[in-house]
């Protein structure tokens, strides 16, 4: 049983100054489901992306069945017997289901330079039928199917050739219960055939139920490998975070009353194709959470509040009656926004930290003849960069040099400098290590106590439960659940509303 299939040896990967994976070594056996757990940014996906040729390896090796492998892309990885089902959508729009399944392996159907499409479709349909997904037609465009069905197509694509290792990277969070059962069935089949699954999931009960062995990473460092049978969920949490997960990681208070004062009211907001009839009120000093699947429209809610949506209907009104319809109005009325797409929408990448922090506040940084004052800008940037303890050499440094967490700190420094009262934070801790995460949670708690109001949009259910006074769950562009802060709230009650 415990024959070694894959040896991970001294693996390292850095992005700029971020050490994503540091000297990680462990073994994966044949015929097991091997779970990889760890907080966001702990290096799980980076590791599997190197295994499947999506990222290049900085140093260290993968030894598969005694042979060192260096896949340069996914097709090469497939040829070595490694495949992946990714977190986000992994099928290509504009291609048929069959073309997606055989992407990179079309040569099988090519005869004298001509592709035999009907043979390809036949073969693909046969596979789909075998998997029990017969309702998906091989010759249809993949765009005709919804997210779930496209995931099923991906499962076929990743497993039809009996790979030695299948990586399943946080696929389950995107699936409904039915889709999950389908995936579990395939996982069991692959295991029973003596092949290996590397399973990445944030859902610890699921990890305990589905896996044989669990390896934990934290901040890019290998922590431990344990047998699933020997551990509890709390043990896993402790491994992931490095200490007991209570106390001041999230807010500790419960039952504090939220002020009656409404600072922002959103009424019947619709963005075609994204969100439908969204109405809610944000109170002074409240942290209002939005949860849901990535495609549920919750990210668009943030943009709509900030006046950044294209073709928005309905109204977003501040306490003083101001209508928010565009970004400059939002900013001048003390609203702030951090985007999920940090590199494109939050920070101006190829610009200095100073300019990034000063941008919305330039109007206040003038001196002689209303001209900009270099001195004031420098002082302002230094002050707020220091308040957020941004790790940098000086404020002339370009933002593109910084790690994800530090970029987020720059964005927050910008809005703290602007002294905004209403903050819309979309995925504020996305891809950020645990230390900075904690800083951000504490900052949010402090702001809340100062009477600032926060809309927090997040795909991490634990942080919503830990931080928010009230959580609205989105599904298919509508609000599908409304949950109040409570120590009894758990992830399952949120998930129930999400899918």
């Amino acid at each position, binding site marked *: 049983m415990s024959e070694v299939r894959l040896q991970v040896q001294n693996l390292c990967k850095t992005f700029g100054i971020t050490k994503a994976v540091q000297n990680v070594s462990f073994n994966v056996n044949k015929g097991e489901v091997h779970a990889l757990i760890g907080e966001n940014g702990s290096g799980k996906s980076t590791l599997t992306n190197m295994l499947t040729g999506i990222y290049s390896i900085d140093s260290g090796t993968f030894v598969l069945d005694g042979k060192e492998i260096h896949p340069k892309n996914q097709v090469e990885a497939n040829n070595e017997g490694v495949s992946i089902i990714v977190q986000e959508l992994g099928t290509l729009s504009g291609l048929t289901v069959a073309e997606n399944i055989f992407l990179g392996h079309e040569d099988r159907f090519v005869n004298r330079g001509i592709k035999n499409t009907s043979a390809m479709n036949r073969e693909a349909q046969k596979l789909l039928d075998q998997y029990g997904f017969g309702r998906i037609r091989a010759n249809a465009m993949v765009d005709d199917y919804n997210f779930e069905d496209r995931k099923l197509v991906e499962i076929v694509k990743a497993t039809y050739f009996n790979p030695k290792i299948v990586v399943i990277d946080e696929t389950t969070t995107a699936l409904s219960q039915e889709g999950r059962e389908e995936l579990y069935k395939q996982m069991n089949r692959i295991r029973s055939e003596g092949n290996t699954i590397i399973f990445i999931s944030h859902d610890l009960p699921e990890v305990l139920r589905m896996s044989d062995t669990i390896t934990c990473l934290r901040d890019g460092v290998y922590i431990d490998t344990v047998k699933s049978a020997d551990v509890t969920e709390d043990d896993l949490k402790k491994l992931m975070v490095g200490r007991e997960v209570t106390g001041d990681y999230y807010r500790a208070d419960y039952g504090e009353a939220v002020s009656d004062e409404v600072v922002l009211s959103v009424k019947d907001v619709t963005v075609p194709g994204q969100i439908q009839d969204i109405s809610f009120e944000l109170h002074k000093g409240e942290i209002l959470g939005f949860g849901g699947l990535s495609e549920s429209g919750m990210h668009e809610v943030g943009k709509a509040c900030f006046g950044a949506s294209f073709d928005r209907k309905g109204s977003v009104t501040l306490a003083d009656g101001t209508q928010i319809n565009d970004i400059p109005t939002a900013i001048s009325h003390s609203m702030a926004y951090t985007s999920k797409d940090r590199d494109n*929408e939050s920070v101006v*990448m*190829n610009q200095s930290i100073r300019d990034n922090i000063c941008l919305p506040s330039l109007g206040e940084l003038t001196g002689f003849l209303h*001209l*900009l004052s270099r001195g004031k800008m420098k002082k302002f940037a230094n002050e707020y960069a220091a308040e957020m303890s941004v790790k940098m050499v000086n404020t002339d440094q370009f933002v593109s040099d910084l790690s994800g967490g530090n970029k987020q700190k720059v964005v927050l420094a910008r809005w703290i400098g602007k002294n905004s009262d209403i903050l819309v934070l979309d995925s504020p801790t996305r891809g950020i290590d645990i230390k900075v995460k904690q800083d951000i949670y504490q900052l949010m708690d402090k702001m809340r106590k100062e009477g600032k109001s926060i809309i927090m949009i997040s795909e991490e259910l634990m942080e919503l439960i830990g931080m928010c006074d009230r959580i609205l769950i989105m599904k298919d562009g509508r609000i599908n659940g409304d949950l109040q802060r409570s120590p009894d709230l758990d992830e399952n009650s949120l998930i129930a509303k999400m899918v």
Partner: protein
Amino acid sequence: MADKTNNSAVSKEEQLKKLSFISMIRSLLPIVGLVVVFLVFNTLTKGRMIKNISLVMSQIYVTMIAATGVFFIMTMGGLDFSQGSILGISSIVVCMVSKTSVPLAVVAGIAAGAAIGAINGFFYVKRKIKSFIVTICTMFLFRGIIKYLTSSAPVGGSAKLVLMNTDRLKLTCTLIVVIVGFIAFNFTRFGIDLRAIGAGEKAAKFAGIRTDLMKFLIYVLAGAITGFAAFINVIKVGSVTASGGNQLETQILIALVLGGMPITGGAKSRFLNVIIGSLLYIVLTSGLTMIGLTTQAMQLFQGVVFLIFVAVFADRESLKVIK
């Protein structure tokens, strides 16, 4: 662990020092180049260049003024190939209106330039067509109109204009444009907004900059500035032919790139690029003419120099942001 982070911070600092050293070299290169080229040509022409400095300078005004507007466009990541046609059309307008009133002619020239800039801006911003495609189209379109208007005879200006052809006036006008441009770029939020758009348009938008409006207005502004340059052009040449303003866009582009302007714009744009670049370009071309290079050889030479400078100054990391 703490030791490790310390180490990486130190090496990071060294790395940054190295980077800032490279960027210092890059920013010094055009200035050094200007001095070297100037000295070399003076030696080659046995001092003829310095004796004819006023002739050399007289070629710089139009380029430098128009380059100021294009500099703004390039800073926010766009390009403008219609500058030559803008100069041609505006020059014709200046000539025609000058027969009525000279001050009115100046205003009319600016208005004509601004109008063409507005057309560029409209198609770029509202129809979301890439700026180089839009401006190549308007370049041909307005070149056609220039040819049509000048088909029977060159369009001549009022005699009053020719009397105004003094270095003092031309120099003053150029200085005003450059100084106002310098202050606006470095000491108002205009410059920072432009650089932010060039360095990351979406993020700039989310930081509260009205990016679409700004992009449109910059094209109008660049057109207006070149419309003003048309006045200087007309008092210098007196009349406009079918080739009036031809290839100004390439001259500007080469001048800016020679001056160290990153072709992708963004945060590394410096106003000094305009001044040094225009000077370097004029010294180079006049010098080459003085030592007897033919027009054909000159174009070849310009092409080679342009390619080399773009290769040196292109910021490959941000190349994808060209708009």
